[in-house]
């Protein structure tokens, strides 16, 4: 039964096609006549009668007797309709579409080899004279299976759930009744890209998702969206009737050092040590952290730099930057808000720009003898808005000064050699506040040196001896106030101590010995004259307020997890401390007001404290103290 109806449908279609063929016949006759006249002209023009031409003419004549005009085939074979083959409805659908399309195409197909088609034409012209059955080509056209529309019930209000069900029913009924025109429509809509929503094929979706435009859009939107999602302030909060939930970050008003938040990214921070931290001078909520290699993931880039945002509660970095070599030191470029500078283990200085959409550095210094060839642990931008330089020092004692516009070669470079004999293996460097010429460096041997960039005494100046292990961190006093303490600096070292120095004496003023492990970093508070922070290998963060006690830290906290803490950085307001640990986590601690905010008399108090310290030290050790020229 089904076969019969199918056959009937086929016969109908064939009849329609025959009618079309008859129409085409007439048109072709006319054209053929034109062609013949052309052909005659051509034969007259061509002097040589090649074999091929002769054969061609013979075949043309033969075909003309049947009634087919000699035209070259334009369309490949698979499209030729095999009228006598048993084809599934979809193929007849395709044939129909082809019929619906240009007639000319159909005509040229006849030229192609299909004998059954030729026979059909012959029949149409001469009125069913011969019935010759022959083998015909089976054309196979693949259509993607219609996507099954499934609907999973979700808990929604009844109104909402009815509508999608109706939609679905409609779609299903439509597809069942008329498969062929539906597919036709689909084709045309997909080709023409109609407005009303149709599903795209998976390939098209993949293509879109891979396109650059989409990735730009996605990155921007996701950033905004994450910020929005992370803010969970409820604008409709009703204070009258409901219980107030505990707010995040409980106010520990009394405590001096309280945990605020921590930054950690599963993908990029895992198994990496935080090698350096820096706060942005322009946007106080931005913090950049650099990480070294992840041994567990050899295919990931060795150096990672992440920019975190304190303002929003989202837990993902604002920007992610890579580098092929571990980044040992990082900093925001002081006078260029978009640039992040990193010094790497290979000696290259990498420059990232957050305006570019790339994660790799936009500029890198060359790996050559003119630049650094040893790990760069110190990067610093000094100067003013108009005249600034990037100063970098590597562990082979080379100091290079660069211009941020051109990192292909340093503006000047200098070997830091002490006493003309041995170069200094620099591990840390600090510039005193508002000084662009003189700076202090700490070395691997445990000695600290002053150095200057220009002038008669360019290079290493004095030596400060006191530590028994490599110096890990150095910090110059930079709180600005009524009394100037810029000659003071502190150093931390592997010998479990933190020492306080003045540039005027080559022996330490005081030694803080409260730690039970390597002290990895120290930093003065930017606002309080007597406050500095230290971190050690036991996971302890200590805040020392020298106006209170000099023997023990005024506030101390052990970071969760007990990992060694590698870096500490005060935020520019002096109210937060960022600590980086060896597991890739950055912890932000809030410092209580009593401790962080200085009083006006703190400066004079500190001056007195200093005098006491000096007096005590003077009592203790008399020899070896050199009063150095200021």
């Amino acid at each position, binding site marked *: 039964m089904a076969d019969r109806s199918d056959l009937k449908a086929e016969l109908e279609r064939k009849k329609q096609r025959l009618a079309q063929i008859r129409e085409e016949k007439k048109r072709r006759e006319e054209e053929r006549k034109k062609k013949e006249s052309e052909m005659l002209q051509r034969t007259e023009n061509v002097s040589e009668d090649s074999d091929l031409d002769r054969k061609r003419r013979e075949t043309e004549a033969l075909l003309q007797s049947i009634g087919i005009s000699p035209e070259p085939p334009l369309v490949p074979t698979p499209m030729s309709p095999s009228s006598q083959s048993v084809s599934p409805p979809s193929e007849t659908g395709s044939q129909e579409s082809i019929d619906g399309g240009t007639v000319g195409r159909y005509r040229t197909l006849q030229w192609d080899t299909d004998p059954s088609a030729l026979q059909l034409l012959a029949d149409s012209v001469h009125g069913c004279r011969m019935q010759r059955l022959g083998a015909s080509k089976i054309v196979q056209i693949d259509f993607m299976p219609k996507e099954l*529309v*499934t*609907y*999973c019930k*979700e808990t929604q209000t009844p109104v909402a759930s009815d*509508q*999608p069900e109706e*939609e*679905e029913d409609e779609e299903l009924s439509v597809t069942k009744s008329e498969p062929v025109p539906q597919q036709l429509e689909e084709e045309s809509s997909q080709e023409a*890209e109609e*407005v009303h*929503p*149709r*599903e*795209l094929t998976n390939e098209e*979706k*993949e293509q*879109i*998702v*891979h396109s*650059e*435009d*989409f*990735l*730009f*859009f*996605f*990155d*921007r*939107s*996701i950033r*905004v*969206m*994450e910020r*929005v*999602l*992370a803010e*969970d302030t*409820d*604008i409709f909060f009703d204070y009258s009737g409901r219980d107030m939930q505990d707010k995040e970050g409980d106010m520990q008003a009394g405590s001096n050092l309280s945990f605020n938040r921590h930054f950690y990214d599963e*993908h990029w921070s895992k198994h990496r040590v935080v090698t350096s931290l820096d706060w942005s001078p322009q946007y106080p909520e931005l913090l950049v952290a650099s990480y070294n290699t992840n041994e567990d993931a050899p295919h990931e880039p060795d150096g990672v730099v992440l920019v975190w945002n304190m303002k929003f509660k989202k837990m*993902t970095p604002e920007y*992610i930057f*890579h580098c092929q070599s571990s980044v040992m030191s990082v900093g925001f470029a002081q006078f260029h808000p978009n640039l992040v500078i990193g010094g790497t283990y290979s000696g290259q200085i990498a420059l990232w720009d957050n305006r570019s*959409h*790339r*994660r*790799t550095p936009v*500029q*890198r210094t*060359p790996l050559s003898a003119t630049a650094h060839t040893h790990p760069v642990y110190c990067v610093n931008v000094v100067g003013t808005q108009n005249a600034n330089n990037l100063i970098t020092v590597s562990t082979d004692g080379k100091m290079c000064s660069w211009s941020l516009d*051109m990192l*292909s*070669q340093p503006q000047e470079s200098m070997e830091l050699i002490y006493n003309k004999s041995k170069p200094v293996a620099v591990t840390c460097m600090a510039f005193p506040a508002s000084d662009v010429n003189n700076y202090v460096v700490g070395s691997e041997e445990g000695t600290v040196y002053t150095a200057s960039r220009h002038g008669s005494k360019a290079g290493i100046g004095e030596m400060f001896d006191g530590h028994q292990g490599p110096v890990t961190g150095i910090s110059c006093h930079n709180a600005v106030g009524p009394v100037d303490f810029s000659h003071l600096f502190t150093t931390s070292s592997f010998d479990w101590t933190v020492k306080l120095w003045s540039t005027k004496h080559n022996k330490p003023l005081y030694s803080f010995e409260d730690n039970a492990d390597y002290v990895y970093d120290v930093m003065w508070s930017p606002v309080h004259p007597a406050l500095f922070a230290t971190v050690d290998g036991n996971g302890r963060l200590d805040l020392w307020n020298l106006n209170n006690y000099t023997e023990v830290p005024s506030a101390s906290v052990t970071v969760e997890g007990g990992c060694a803490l590698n870096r500490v950085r005060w935020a520019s307001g002096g109210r937060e401390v960022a600590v980086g640990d060896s597991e890739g986590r950055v912890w932000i601690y809030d410092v209580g007001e009593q401790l962080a905010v200085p009083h006006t008399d703190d400066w004079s108090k500190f001056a007195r404290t200093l005098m006491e310290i000096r007096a005590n030290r003077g009592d203790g050790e008399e020899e070896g103290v050199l009063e150095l020229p200021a």
Partner: protein
Amino acid sequence: MLIVLQLYFSFHSNDRQTEEAPVLSDMAEVEDTLKRIQGINGVIGTIVVNAEGIPIKTTLDNSTTVQYAGLLHQLTMKARSTVRDIDPQNDLTFLRIRSKKHEIMVSTDKEYLLIVIQNPAE
């Protein structure tokens, strides 16, 4: 001087050749990011829609996606035309619909929409 300039340019071209230059997030990261967003507490679904209202990526079932995509696309078009009518130099960037039960956030630019449906009470 001239030599220095040449060095600069050649260095840059080497830079481009040697670096892989990955764009900020590639396909796998897009997937990861969407999964992460979906995992945030309270997020019901995420849909990415192109300029014609056809959903490209979604974490919801098909019918809901099609419904949201179509409706929000029309609404976004209307909102955008509103913003533009008031000030032709202006353009719509973010649309946030707060209802009794959900919050729908649409981040938009010229070509695509990122729709996130959240239940903000949690």
